[in-house]
């Protein structure tokens, strides 16, 4: 590409076509943010079921009302009475694949937690045979210490700790889950907190030293900082990495990834052109070895 002869080169507009190394415009870099926040919750499930029932009922009532009006109209006009409406039975789902829905907490462990923590617990329920306890975000460390030390709970192993990004949710941005295992009692429990953007939850390190790397990984991938963590640095990505890869607004193709569709580029000509282009745009890419 030619540069103006007088003085500073002007930034050029990228040429048309899909093979220009334009980071922002790359189709693989376009992010579609999720529209829902899929947070399993008994309250939400109940509300959903209730809403569905209400809608169903309303529909039925409407059908009945329609029938009444139709009947009255028919009687008025002397026509034969229209058929009475039949309440529609929900269509039988022959699909035997069914995601388990949340159910009422029945396990004594959850009751024990509710008893101990009282109003610090936001929600307890079971789903797919797993115990879930959602607590307030400020008292997660307290809960974990309790789970570890309480005689009736004795969850001595922190199996996993991870977080999920929910950009579509209104009053929180992340959920952090702690998978606890009791070796002696053969039980698993999931502690969950919901945190907004920028909130720093307490590190689980004092209760479970294994949280050290797990929390570093969460920080690395999602950018959640933990308070009083011994070493809050990146673990998997390089130190100077920009962005939080597991957030939903991060593209699938990372920085420095190739954006050229090799499927069309059989002889590498387009690749080479793109590399040249990138070089002119000031992006330092490694040029592949010529054959």
């Amino acid at each position, binding site marked *: 590409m030619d540069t103006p002869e007088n003085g500073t080169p002007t930034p050029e507009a990228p040429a048309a076509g899909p093979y220009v190394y334009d980071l922002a415009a790359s189709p693989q870099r376009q992010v579609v943010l999720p529209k829902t926040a899929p947070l399993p919750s008994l309250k939400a499930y109940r509300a959903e079921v209730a809403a569905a029932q209400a809608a169903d009922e309303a529909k039925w009532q409407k059908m009945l009302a329609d029938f009444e009006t139709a009947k009255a109209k028919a009687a008025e006009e002397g026509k034969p009475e229209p058929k009475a409406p039949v309440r529609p039975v929900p269509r039988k789902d022959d699909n035997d694949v069914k995601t388990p829905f949340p159910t009422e907490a029945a396990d004594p462990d959850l009751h024990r937690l509710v008893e101990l923590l009282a109003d610090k617990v936001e929600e307890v329920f079971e789903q797919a045979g797993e115990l879930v306890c959602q607590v307030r975000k400020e008292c997660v460390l307290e809960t974990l210490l309790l789970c570890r030390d309480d005689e009736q709970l004795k969850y001595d192993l922190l199996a996993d700790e991870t977080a999920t990004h929910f950009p579509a949710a209104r009053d929180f941005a992340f959920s952090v889950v702690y998978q606890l295992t009791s070796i002696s009692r053969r039980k698993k429990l999931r502690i969950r907190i919901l945190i907004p953007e920028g909130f720093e939850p307490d590190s689980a390190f004092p209760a479970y030293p294994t949280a050290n790397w797990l929390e570093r990984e969460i920080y690395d991938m999602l950018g959640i900082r933990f308070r009083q963590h011994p070493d809050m640095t990146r673990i998997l990505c390089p130190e100077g990495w920009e962005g939080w890869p597991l957030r939903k607004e991060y593209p699938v193709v990372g920085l420095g990834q190739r954006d050229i569709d090799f*499927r069309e580029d059989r002889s*590498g000509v387009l690749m080479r052109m793109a590399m040249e282009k990138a070089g002119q745009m000031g992006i330092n890419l490694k040029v592949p070895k010529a054959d």
Partner: protein
Amino acid sequence: MASFLRTLIPLDIYGGMKLTGKYFGKVLREANRARIRTHVVCEYPEVPVKLQPRFRGRLTLLKDEQGEIKCICCLACEKICPTQVITIEKGKKEGRKLPYPVRYDFEMERCIFCEFCVESCGFDSIILNHQFELAAYNREDFSIGMEGRFQNMFELSPVARYSVAEEAQR
């Protein structure tokens, strides 16, 4: 005292030496004779490898009795492929009712040989054959198509021509 003697007389080491010595003698005697094989070496380029019938090698299109490509471009394989290595272009052919793939491109460079494509195919028109010598000198050799500029998927793999096994079989 007993432990002192045990330290002095290395019976534990003797056991290991006996085992290795035994195998040395065995292999030395049977090093290369045709029948007996103590050693587990497969002398690959000279002796062709035995593959199991379900081996997942390179993708290829199947043809029916008339030599007609079976694929009818339902795009199931293109959709299921986890690494998106298959590109199909639908087309028409004289004297054929069903759609005919004008292009069936397969980028072996990215293929991970999971066989999802074969599984998804409802018409048994593709298989993973038994070609496993898939290294190549040029990137273009990894682009495999039906005909034209690129490697033809109905022929031997682009690399088989570098293989010695093929010569030994001849």
